[in-house]
């Protein structure tokens, strides 16, 4: 019984990621899309929030924003939209932390 948490806003603009992390449970996955992908930058303060979580990010949103793969946190799963669809199908429910 798992949840896919989708965060689409930058952690430096909104509290969505910070709130989401409080609701994340073992077996869940966190997917970063749109401006949410900035959280996956290893050198950023927000990266600390992602420790111990299963995190994925939409590669097209990272590329669009010029975030190089060498800048990302360890263990990040990069997905395309097909992968996004798979993540939704695999989880039991989806929570969009808008």
């Amino acid at each position, binding site marked *: 019984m798992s949840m896919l948490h*989708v965060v*689409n*806003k930058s952690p430096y603009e909104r509290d969505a990621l910070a709130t989401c992390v409080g609701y994340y449970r073992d077996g869940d996955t966190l997917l970063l*899309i*749109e*401006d949410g992908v900035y959280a996956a930058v290893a050198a950023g303060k927000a990266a600390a929030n992602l420790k111990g979580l299963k995190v994925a990010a939409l590669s*097209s949103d990272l590329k669009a924003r010029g975030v190089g793969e060498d800048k990302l946190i360890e263990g990040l799963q990069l997905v*395309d*939209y*097909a992968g*996004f*669809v*798979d993540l*939704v*199908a695999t989880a039991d*429910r*989806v929570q*969009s932390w*808008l």
Partner: protein
Amino acid sequence: MKFTIQVNEGPYQHQASDSAYQFTKAALDKGHEIFRVFFYHDGVNNGTRLATPPQDDRNVMKRWSDLAAEHNLDLVVCVAAAQRRGIADPDEARRNGKDADNIAPGFRISGLGQLIEGGIQSDRLVVFGD
């Protein structure tokens, strides 16, 4: 799997409609069924046919209309949200005494019950917004 997609924001202002479109397209390519795409809040503005966006970028509204035509999608614009924001089909325009309608091809206007029904009938609800 059956998906219902909820789009909470208008075209261009937020990436929500783009993300929803790309997700919908990918789901269809994988052989999933899109039960409904429901446009709420400013998302109703995706359903206008009067926009003339610049030619060198994607046409968010037309992209939805084209996808709907290609896959026989049910694109629903919430009637209450549409009335508030000025998106109307010929029936709504006539009913509310307006001199024009502006709904784009492939979109239909209906009630919030369609979103609830989507939640009931689909395996997954995916919400795109701000």
